[in-house]
């Protein structure tokens, strides 16, 4: 579904991504892990079009998405969440989610101004869809919550809201940037279940995560980045016993160095 081949990106003289290859198959959960500064978030920014790669190719469902505007990439079916939460704080919860529907709705200015029947139907459809997406997270984002400003939500609920907003874009591929960051063990266990459910719903997921409990439980495949290079790939067990991975995380043993 997503094919990243030979991707390179440098900021000035710093090579952030170096000859990166990642493949994600349909309904697969692929986790990208690595130490801080390994280039994980940069990879997501490259996929979503926020950064332009120096060389290499990113293909989504066979089509190259290089050089496309971020909103056009979203329209194709790639949506993401942010490591540093970026919900629209001063908009209501339901509006936050409804915003995600922009790319697959098409009421024009004219039908909006005159409130044509087509517009009315579409608005109803959007609202219904938004409520449906929010119901995915149980009652905590429902009912009286709909019309409350997003800033009144707790940290964990904002993460959920971001996921709902990403689902609202009708995406096939979800890029989740550290969904369990800042959550307590109970909440991250719940997020883990949720990601599994998302896959069952038909989503494909590329996950960046530091919490190894989350990664270990749900990943079909794990790719490990270090200094912008993929140093290992495989199942969670394979990767965590890999010599180079341990080295990247913990450093080399002293006697080996000598």
């Amino acid at each position, binding site marked *: 579904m997503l094919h990243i081949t030979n991707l390179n990106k440098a900021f000035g003289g710093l090579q952030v991504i170096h000859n990166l290859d990642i493949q994600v198959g349909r309904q697969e959960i692929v986790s990208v892990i690595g130490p801080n500064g390994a280039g994980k978030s940069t990879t997501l920014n490259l996929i979503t079009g926020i950064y332009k790669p120096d060389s290499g190719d990113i293909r989504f469902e066979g089509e190259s998405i290089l050089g496309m505007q971020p909103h056009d990439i979203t329209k194709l079916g790639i949506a993401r969440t942010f490591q540093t939460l970026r919900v*629209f704080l001063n908009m209501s919860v339901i509006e936050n989610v409804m915003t995600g529907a922009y790319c697959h709705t098409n009421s024009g200015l004219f039908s909006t101004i005159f409130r044509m029947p087509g517009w009315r139907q579409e608005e109803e459809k959007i609202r219904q869809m938004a409520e449906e997406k929010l119901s995915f997270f149980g009652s905590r984002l429902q009912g009286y919550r709909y019309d409350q400003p997003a800033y009144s939500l707790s940290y964990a609920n904002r993460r959920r809201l971001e996921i709902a907003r990403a689902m609202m874009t009708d995406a096939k591929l979800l890029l989740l940037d550290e969904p369990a960051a800042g959550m307590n063990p109970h909440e991250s266990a719940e997020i883990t279940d949720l990601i599994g459910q998302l896959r069952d719903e038909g989503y494909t997921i590329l996950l960046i995560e530091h919490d190894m409990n989350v990664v270990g439980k749900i990943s079909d495949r794990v790719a490990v980045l270090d200094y912008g290079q993929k140093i290992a790939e495989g199942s969670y067990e394979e990767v965590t016993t890999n010599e180079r991975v341990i080295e990247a995380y913990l450093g080399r043993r002293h006697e080996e160095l000598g």
Partner: protein
Amino acid sequence: MTDPTNNPIPPDDDEEKKSKIGTDEWVSQVDDRVRGRSGVLGRLVALWEAIPESWRYTGVLLLVIAFPVISGTDAFLELFDIGDNAFILRTGVRFLTFAILAIGLNVVVGYAGLLDLGYIAFMGIAGYLYAYMSSEFVQIEGLIPYGLAIPSIVSIPLIVLIVAGIGYLIGSVSIRLAGDYLAIVTLGFGQVFIQLALTATRVSVPGFDRPVDLTRGPNGINNLDDITLFGYTFESTMQYYYLFLLLLIIVFVVVNNINRSRIGRAWRAVREDELAAEVMGTPTRRMKLLAFAIGAGIAALAGAVDAAFQGNVVPNPRYSVLTLINLYAMVVLGGTGSLIGSIVGAFIFTILPELLRNIAAAGVLFYGVGIIGLYAALRPWRRFALVMGGTLVGGLLLKLIVPAINPAWDNGFPEAGSVLNQIVQGWLVIPENFQLVGNIVTGLAIFFLLAAMFLRQRQHLFHVLLGLAIYSFAFSWETRLAVEPSATRILVVGATLVVLMVARPQGLLGKTEVKII
């Protein structure tokens, strides 16, 4: 890693005793609880909110429709001490014009969050376009001898479209810039426009042997035709009042409809977080350009009809930065992002200075705003009552003691305009040379107020200083300000705005914006 389930929080048996702080539902209702204030103000707000929304709109609308008739009655003219209904109606038209302009600016600034300082130029361009289309200004011998004379039903929509197009173009070259940079570029655009309007009087145009006067410079273009729609010509101020009212309603409904749709949501998303909006599939650049174009179109509508109403286009000060600043003040005062707020802001800004021409009304406003300001600053209301009561009693004591020591210290008689003035002057100790003393006391009043603000923490001192400030402000008003209305008018408008903005920094009808939590 320790298992958190080893250490469960003991279940609370008594649901009532449990603190609700930290509970999602409780936290989320904080705003409601804050809004449900105690006291008279809270009760008034509750009373107003008990009226169904549609009734409120209908009531206000009926009042506005009936206003020209009400303002024409003798009772109304006498009450406000104005001899002429035409003046009131002109002020009304000014209000409606500015309300439309403020809504347009609100679309750009409030919804899409673009700091556009060239906004007023769109109004100006529309004015000049209307002048070209509907006066004898454009004359080419043999071809257009008596001006273009395009019918209003064609020219007004055409102007709106052209100016919206110009707005789109200006936007597309500058929209990449964010915040302050966009402001500077658009400010430059506005300046270019007004300089052109002032100086493009001798322009060589191919095909003409003499330089062509495009704008008639600072004098502007006169004798514009009135608007004619379906054979009906708008001539009198009252007719224009209703035309502007109709346009305001149309603009309000259009913007309101857009705002409550996916386009409105996209605008707000762009304002909140442009990157997130873009990545969530909103074409941010297109949305910003749309806001720019719609704002320009609304400015053009107001500008063209305003030119027809005035019968001329004169660049200064109508299309100057000064007008722009006024418009911004209206939008900010009403609350950026609030449609009704823009109208309220325009109302306060156009009506208030006119109302204050009447010094008796200005006095009522001065004391009214002062008391409301104090009431807002002193909570709970007992503190307010304490300070007011203390000042009142202190003043009365002075009134008893001072004349007993030396009667000459209390025999000044400034002009008393209204009953209110007479009452306050009866309470104050006013010496013979009150004008000199008034100057000093005005300075003292400001000193006391500032001192009170600095010493807020020390409650008793704060209350005493406030009382002194109240007394000296009342003295200053009665002896100096009320005697010189022309300067006072501006002062009171300024002070009112300061008080309003301090009391509600988010604007009268705006919502508090939360940036990062």
